[in-house]
């Protein structure tokens, strides 16, 4: 347990006052705390490093910890110093802020540690000086991106669905994370397959096939087998439409979904087909329709749902938007300049290719990107000179923004890899947390076994007493707290093994005679403590009632009150029976019997207690089963 949390223990123990009036048994005696609790303090300054400064210096900023009266909480009377249990290295920067008025960010420190120190001392990070502000912001942004990705990855993928999700939510989840269910996976692969089929069909359509009989010209396959291609296209569009409509239905926010990039791509991919269907056979318009076929190329973008690499690429491009913009702009400038120059240089030549400035654009681009097709070459000397300058500058202009883009891509790619690694480590981490929790519980159980609750005066010097003493006072108090909780509820903590052992043993003879069932779970009843089974003499004959008995250990002291109205008890007379209890004051000595399966409480089925007229509308039953027998424990 974290050391900082240990200091909250008095609070947790104080909060136990809420259990006292409810407790079924008396609270155990608290452990005797021999040493005075106070002493973690009492040294010099910030973790041993002494700092000295004028009071005025600190008073300059009265809205921080050091400048206000809050520091009195940290004043140590004995040594007459203010003691802070914080990082001394960081404190140097904090104090420099008071001295110089500028807060600097130490580059070698972790950004989160720095932020925590600032929060502790009450300093707002906005006052970081200009010299360090940019570094601070960059690191902070990186950290937050990382955290956002982590939480997104956690939430998005393998968290199990909440139990009451509607079919719509489940459908959406199936679409977003296909590996959660087999149906989703199947659908995922089917759509992927059809995207591929559609793209390949588009491509093959244009390949020249052998011509029909009696014709010399090569026909593109699309026209030769037009029916086949049409059928394939129809099938693909149907699948895509179906998928789109399903996604639209399942989306938690339909407007947001419709505006998202993927949905726009989906629409654009299938629109041409439908437009073609409804288009009349008008010659002019059908020409336009033919052009819409081009939009079918968008279908290939649907693959980005299936490939994470594509998404990373897209995200990289988005994040490098400014660099790309700069590249484009500078290239355009250079192209226009050089094209103009080349045009005027080559204007005089006969039969030149450089017929206009836009025509020279082609030459400039080909030269600057070092492609050099050679379809347009300058002939004049001036043209050649400017041409060589053009190719040299092209290399420079393109090479400049590229490293920025590359580094962005690498950063994002590594982040993605980190997300995958984190997911793999998640399981290990969870296992570790579970182990730690079990450790605490086991410590408590061991403590109980060694009879730690007995009065220490009775202890003779033996091994177990020594073991007890080795525990810290914190552990004593924590165990006392858990023990109080046990006494409140009259149940005891056990470990998983004992618990499952208990549930395995079945006592056949003790079925509930209850007809209205808790739910489908109540097939068999188990008795969880076989040695007590003999004491359970009573089986309820009441057909509408089941009693579950919890506290077996205390059966000796239990006295069950059975009201005279027992056999005819109906649910609606529950409250009436509590009135009857006043009359049946003598305790009768039988212990009640039935244990139902200790499965986690089911969602309540159908029963609801009709509000009794005696108690005006207050009693409402929100649980599935409830007892019709009130039990009076003698200790209360």
């Amino acid at each position, binding site marked *: 347990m974290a050391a*900082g949390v240990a200091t909250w223990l008095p609070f947790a123990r104080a909060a136990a006052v809420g259990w006292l009036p409810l407790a079924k048994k008396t609270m155990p005696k*608290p452990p005797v*705390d021999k040493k005075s609790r106070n002493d973690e303090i009492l040294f010099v300054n910030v973790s041993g490093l002494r700092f000295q400064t004028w009071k005025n210096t600190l008073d300059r900023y009265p809205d921080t910890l050091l400048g206000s009266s809050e520091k009195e909480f940290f004043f140590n009377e004995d040594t007459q110093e203010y003691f802070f249990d914080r990082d001394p290295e960081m404190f140097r920067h904090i104090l420099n802020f008071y001295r110089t008025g500028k807060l600097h960010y130490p580059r070698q420190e972790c950004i989160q540690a720095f932020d925590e120190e600032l929060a502790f001392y009450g300093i707002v990070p906005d006052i970081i000086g200009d010299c360090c502000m940019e570094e601070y912001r960059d690191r902070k942004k990186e950290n937050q991106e990382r955290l956002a990705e982590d939480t997104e990855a956690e939430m998005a993928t393998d968290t199990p669905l909440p139990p009451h999700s509607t079919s719509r939510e489940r459908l959406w989840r199936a679409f977003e994370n296909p590996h959660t269910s087999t149906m989703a996976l199947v659908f995922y692969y089917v759509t992927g397959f059809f995207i591929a089929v559609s793209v390949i069909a588009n491509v093959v359509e244009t390949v020249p096939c052998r011509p029909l009989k009696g014709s010399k010209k090569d026909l593109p396959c699309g026209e030769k087998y037009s029916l086949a291609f049409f059928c394939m296209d129809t099938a693909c569009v149907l699948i895509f439409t179906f998928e789109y409509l399903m996604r639209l239905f399942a989306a938690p926010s339909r407007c947001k979904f419709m505006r998202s990039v993927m949905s726009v791509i989906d629409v654009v991919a299938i629109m041409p087909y439908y437009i073609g269907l409804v288009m009349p056979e008008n010659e002019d318009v059908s020409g*336009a329709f033919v052009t819409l076929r081009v939009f079918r190329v968008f279908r290939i973008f649907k693959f980005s749902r299936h490939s994470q690499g594509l998404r990373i690429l897209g995200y990289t491009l988005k994040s490098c938007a400014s660099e790309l913009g700069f590249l484009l702009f500078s290239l355009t400038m250079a192209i226009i300049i050089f094209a103009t120059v080349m045009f005027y240089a080559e204007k005089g030549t006969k039969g030149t290719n450089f017929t206009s400035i836009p025509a020279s654009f082609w030459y400039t681009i080909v030269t600057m990107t070092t492609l050099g097709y050679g379809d347009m070459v300058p002939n004049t000397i001036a043209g050649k000179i400017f041409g060589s300058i053009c190719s040299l500058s092209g290399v420079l202009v393109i090479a400049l923004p590229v490293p920025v883009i590359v580094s962005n891509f690498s950063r994002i790619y590594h982040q993605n890899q980190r997300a995958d690694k984190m997911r793999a480590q998640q399981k290990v981490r969870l296992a570790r947390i579970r182990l730690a929790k079990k450790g605490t519980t086991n410590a408590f159980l061991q403590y109980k076994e060694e009879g730690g609750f007995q009065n220490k005066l009775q202890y003779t010097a033996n091994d177990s007493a020594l073991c007890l003493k080795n525990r810290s006072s914190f552990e004593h108090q924590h165990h006392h707290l858990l023990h109080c909780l046990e006494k409140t509820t009259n149940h005891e903590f056990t470990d998983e093994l004992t618990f499952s052992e208990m549930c395995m043993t079945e006592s056949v003879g003790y079925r509930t005679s209850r007809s209205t069932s808790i739910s489908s779970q109540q097939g068999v009843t188990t008795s969880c403590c076989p040695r007590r089974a003999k004491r359970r003499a009573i089986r309820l004959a009441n057909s509408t009632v089941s009693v579950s008995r*919890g506290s077996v250990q205390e059966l000796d002291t239990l006295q069950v009150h059975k009201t005279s109205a027992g056999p005819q008890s109906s649910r609606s007379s529950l409250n009436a029976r509590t009135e009857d209890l006043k009359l049946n004051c003598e305790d009768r000595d039988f212990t009640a019997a039935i244990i*139902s399966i200790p499965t986690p409480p089911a969602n309540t089925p159908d029963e609801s207690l009709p509000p009794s007229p005696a108690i005006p509308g207050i*009693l409402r039953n929100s649980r599935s089963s409830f007892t019709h027998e009130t039990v009076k424990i003698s200790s209360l």
Partner: protein
Amino acid sequence: MSQAHGFLKQLLPADETGGLYVLMLLSFFPLYCWFRKGESSEEEFQISFVCHRPEGLQILEEQTKFSKRELQFLYRAFKNECPSGVVDEDVFKLIYSQFFPQGDSSNYAHFLFEAFDTNKNGCLSFQEFVAGLSLILRGSMYDRLNWAFHFYDHDKDGFITKEEMLNIMKSIYEMMGKYVSPPIQDDIPREHVDRFFQKMDRNRDGVVTIEEFIESCQKDENIMRSMRLFDSVF
């Protein structure tokens, strides 16, 4: 008219190139918007900062029954977990859950939080924290019972109803967790509540008022004895 038509026909040939032009034009705008969105989203990382400072040590010493040393001790613990000076409910639940590893203490922590947060602003300041603790740990028997009563009475109407008590009871049982012996059946909390009401509700009107509560508790020797253990907690 036909001239314009002819011109248009020339410009947009009846094959795919027209579509290509359209493609280019149409895709420019969304791409531009998409890029701009990529840039602007970088500015979204807000640095928010909340800080709360408690009253001075002197004032707190007067208001509560803790000594200066004890207040210092408590404040250091408090500030360590919550440097901003206030606890919000999630942090509170997290801290409390560390003491009960087996069960789920979030509901009980929620009730506790509400009981301590006297000004109902959703955060627990050090003052509220220390005021509550002072009442419990240094208060009289009456103070403690009073605090417990207000803890149970959620809506602060002066009556504890069965439903309020059932909520508390369920949250306590949840803290025990699953692995308990004997296993907790579904109706145990309700049964416990009924027993409680049977003891506390004198006039059988289905609610427990504060007088009934205090009177019944004072009559019960066990409760009184248990209450005394709080004298030595801190």
